[in-house]
């Protein structure tokens, strides 16, 4: 990584085991501030585990994860806004009440921005969360995640379950609702082609090991390959970035 670029997130020889199964294995990575970073890899490669470690809702078995110099524990939520891949909500709330709940919890929650995102996502504030379609629940999740003014935003499969038109709108919305002067976005997704145009950096993980980290612009300009083509090449080469 170029010197002088602020490092926002650091994985320092992190191993994370679920019982005897290692989800991440001696994983070291340094992510810059103010970028959109795509975390890609096959199912079960460790992408979601990496995001959970940054969000502090799980702890490393070995090693350490820091966010903006602070060790990531559960209380790192003051710096990290995390969108889980799980389809779980407080279903007793309406859309408007969900936004109010988040606004009450987080001092960094920007209510005006949340309202803008709700309008952009065409979400009815009076509708109960339990009555929303899966796609609309996904949009609500995105709205409350992006409305926070935190240095790090994590989105685990935010496009899953959404139709292609909505996915396109959301990808465009990410650019409008993130302040790249102050915020870093890390996103995992299988819809790589759809987010490729907005990514600055891509990180490829396989079996809990970091394979490669590349600047997306360099891939396009110098290697003249798409991220998917690059992934195939790296998988074939089995190249590990250390």
């Amino acid at each position: 990584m170029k010197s002088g670029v602020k490092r926002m997130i650091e994985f320092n020889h992190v191993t994370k085991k679920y019982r005897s199964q290692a989800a991440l294995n001696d994983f070291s990575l340094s992510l810059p501030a103010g970028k959109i970073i795509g975390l890609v890899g096959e199912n079960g490669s460790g992408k979601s585990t990496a995001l959970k470690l940054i969000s502090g809702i799980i702890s490393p078995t070995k090693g350490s994860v820091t966010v903006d110099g602070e060790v990531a524990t559960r209380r790192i939520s003051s710096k990290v806004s995390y969108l889980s891949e799980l389809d779980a909500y407080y279903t007793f709330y309406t859309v408007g009440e969900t936004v109010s709940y988040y606004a009450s919890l987080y001092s960094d929650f920007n209510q005006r921005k949340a309202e803008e995102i709700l309008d952009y996502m065409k979400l009815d504030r009076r509708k109960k969360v339990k009555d929303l379609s899966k796609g609309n629940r996904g949009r609500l999740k995105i709205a409350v995640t992006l409305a926070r003014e935190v240095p790090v935003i994590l989105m685990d499969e935010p496009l899953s379950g959404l139709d292609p038109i909505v996915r396109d709108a959301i990808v465009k919305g990410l650019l409008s609702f993130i302040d790249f002067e102050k915020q870093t976005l890390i996103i995992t997704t299988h819809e790589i082609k759809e987010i490729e145009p907005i990514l600055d950096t891509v990180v490829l993980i396989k079996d809990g090991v970091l394979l490669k980290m590349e600047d997306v612009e360099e891939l396009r300009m110098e290697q003249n390959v798409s991220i998917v083509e690059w992934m195939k090449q790296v998988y074939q080469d089995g190249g590990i970035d250390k």
Partner: protein
Amino acid sequence: MNPWWGQLAKEYRLGRGGAIGALIALFLYLGIGVYASWRMGNPETFLAFCAFALMMHVLYMAGYMCVSLIREQRTLHLWLQTPLPAYKLLLAKLLNGWGALAFSLFIISAITLLSGTMVVNLFELDPELTWRDVISTGILIDIHILLIALYIGIGLTFLWAIYLVVSKSLGKVSGNVIGICLFFFLPWLMSKWEGTGLFHALFIWGKVDLNFSDVAYVAFRHVYIGYYFYHFLLALLLLFIASWLIERKVEV
């Protein structure tokens, strides 16, 4: 809004359905009591129904916390992501449950009082009984129900935190087995400890006589402040351990 108030409001919404359900169940049960009393032609039957419902409120917090914690488990990542410390998250649940218990307890206490004084008329059965005895005994019982129920609720929260930690690291079956073993083992261990001379030396002090009439005499004639102090410390310890486990060891 302050995050703590936001969390309290969320817990209120989470627990409201269960609390209303419990109230409906209480009234249905009392309806059965009225019917049974009418069929048997014995007003005292209804009083017995009321007294039983009143006493069963010691289990209210256990039921409330079970429902609340099981529902929370489905959205655990949201709960763990909140910026509040774990003890405040737990206190928000306990306070809401305690409020619901106090409301339900007030209703059943009032009904029991009315049935004891107007339907059965205890004053006729025992001329020595005074309103002061009835009210004092009622308040004493209600305070103890509130305290015991809260204590059980904290104990259950402690077991839940252990279950979450164990089930994540060893599996759900192990979590259940260890939880059930602790459920039986800890009270046994406590009873053994409370029978020791050291326990008596440390905590059986501050005797307070309860000057009620013989009729109002409930289960004990005096209490020890030290004994309450011991259970207060134990409740704090259980809450502290549960909070620590949730803060540091519980994962999703």
